[in-house]
């Protein structure tokens, strides 16, 4: 069943084989170019609310570019031009009414390498909160405990909140970064290869965290690790050469993809 509007100019119409649930992010005919070189072509897809959606595809297919576009991280790059729309809960993120700082509060982002600030664990999580509003200390402490608990880190750091965040292991640092993002209560969490620099146990902890977080917010995951996409995501979008090739429930994409291009990629065949 084709449920999403098809991108008219795509070289081959993408397959969207499901009826989207309640939509959180709606990407419509979105194009993006770096210095005139097209990186994303006519992408149209809806990201369901309170679900994990994975973007998979070969290097250079545009999945990270798309993730960054959702957070408007390309704003400062003057060579980037874009067309089409990205709507967050019905509101265009590029509209003049959209405040970029507010957008980035609502759409948090976590990168491949953990990037805690050179300050204490407590101050890392409090950082976004302090920028956002003044809060009584007790209230702030509660939010920090909640964020660290949500990021499955509280039990490991509760006795050393005022020690440097750099003393944490890589996996703990990544969960701290997630806690820092959660503290400002975003609607969406974008994860760009969040576990690719971590060992298998830390990776599993991050994956477990992703699964637990979806009751609170919408998650979008970019990953090169297809088993990871298969393990944690509810929906999977396969991108190639800046185009959306296939988008559907993860179970279907990994057991019975509709297109040969998807099949070739996820099973490691020559294309």
């Amino acid at each position, binding site marked *: 069943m084709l449920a999403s509007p098809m991108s008219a100019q795509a070289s081959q119409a993408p397959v969207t084989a499901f009826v989207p649930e309640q939509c959180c992010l709606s990407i419509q005919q979105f194009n993006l170019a770096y210095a005139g070189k097209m990186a994303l072509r006519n992408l149209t897809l809806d990201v369901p609310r309170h679900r994990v959606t994975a973007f998979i595809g070969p290097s250079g297919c545009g999945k990270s570019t798309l993730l960054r576009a959702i957070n408007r991280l390309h704003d400062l790059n003057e060579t980037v031009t874009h067309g089409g729309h990205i709507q967050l809960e019905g509101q265009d993120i590029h509209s003049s009414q959209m405040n970029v700082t507010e957008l980035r509060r609502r759409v948090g982002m976590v990168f491949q390498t953990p990037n805690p600030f050179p300050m204490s664990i407590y101050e890392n999580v409090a950082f976004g909160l302090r920028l956002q509003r003044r809060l009584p200390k007790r209230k702030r402490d509660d939010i920090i405990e909640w964020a660290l608990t949500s990021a499955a880190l509280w039990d490991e750091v509760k006795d050393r909140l005022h020690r440097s965040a750099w003393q944490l292991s890589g996996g703990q640092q990544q969960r701290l970064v997630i806690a820092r993002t959660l503290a400002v209560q975003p609607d969406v969490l974008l994860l760009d290869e969040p576990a690719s620099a971590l060992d298998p146990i830390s990776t599993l902890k991050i994956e477990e965290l992703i699964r637990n977080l979806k009751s609170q917010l919408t998650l979008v995951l970019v990953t090169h690790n297809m088993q990871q996409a298969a393990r944690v995501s509810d929906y999977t979008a396969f991108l190639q050469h800046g185009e959306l090739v296939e988008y559907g429930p993860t179970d279907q994409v990994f057991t019975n*993809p509709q297109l040969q291009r998807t*099949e070739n990629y996820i*099973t490691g065949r020559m294309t």
Partner: protein
Amino acid sequence: MDITSDTHSQHISRQFNQELEELKTHLMAMGGLVEKQVQDAVYALLEGDSRLAEKVRDNDRQVNDLQLQIDDECTRVLARRQPAASDLRLVLAVIRATSDLERIGDEASKIARNALLLSENNGTIRGLVEVRHISEHVRKMLRDALTSFARFDTELAMQVVREDESVDDEYGSAMRSLMTFMMEDSRSISSVLSIMWVLRALERVGDHANNLAEYVVYLVKGLDIRHSDPDTLDQKVLKKP
């Protein structure tokens, strides 16, 4: 999206291609052995060849060993390659198919055991016509099911699925005739009961061949047609009106 028999030989990893090819080759070898077991068991019964019947009984161990070997290969592929899409479906289909082939091997052994019992019987054996007829039917089903697996041919697989119903009808009618024989001549009860067990075993072979054909549809089209309504199957699988 349908796949073809070449699909599993196009991976970037040649070793993975080889592992999947071996799974298919070993499954076909097991299929060939099981097919021969059924053929020999029926021949031994019809011709009263007790030596051949004993051979069938003894060969069942080879069938069991092949099942263990192929299952082990499948486990290794799952653990080491984490296959997806058509690769995953191939491994699942092979695991399921080995189980059915092993059961067919068991049915061939049952037929051979009854052939041995009947070879000691000096009187006329009733029901051999029915055995010959149904055995030809189910052996064709088994052959076609294995061919459809080797060629990834869903049309042939669907023919096997359709045949199963007529084997069930033939089995019901043969059982009614055999009951009549038993009522007419109580001295024949023991031999007719053996023939009934043989027919039952053949009917089960037909069921397992039907299962194999269903796995082919799953493998090629990703459609699980087990427990589906037979009236809508063609439309579902072959997209015929």
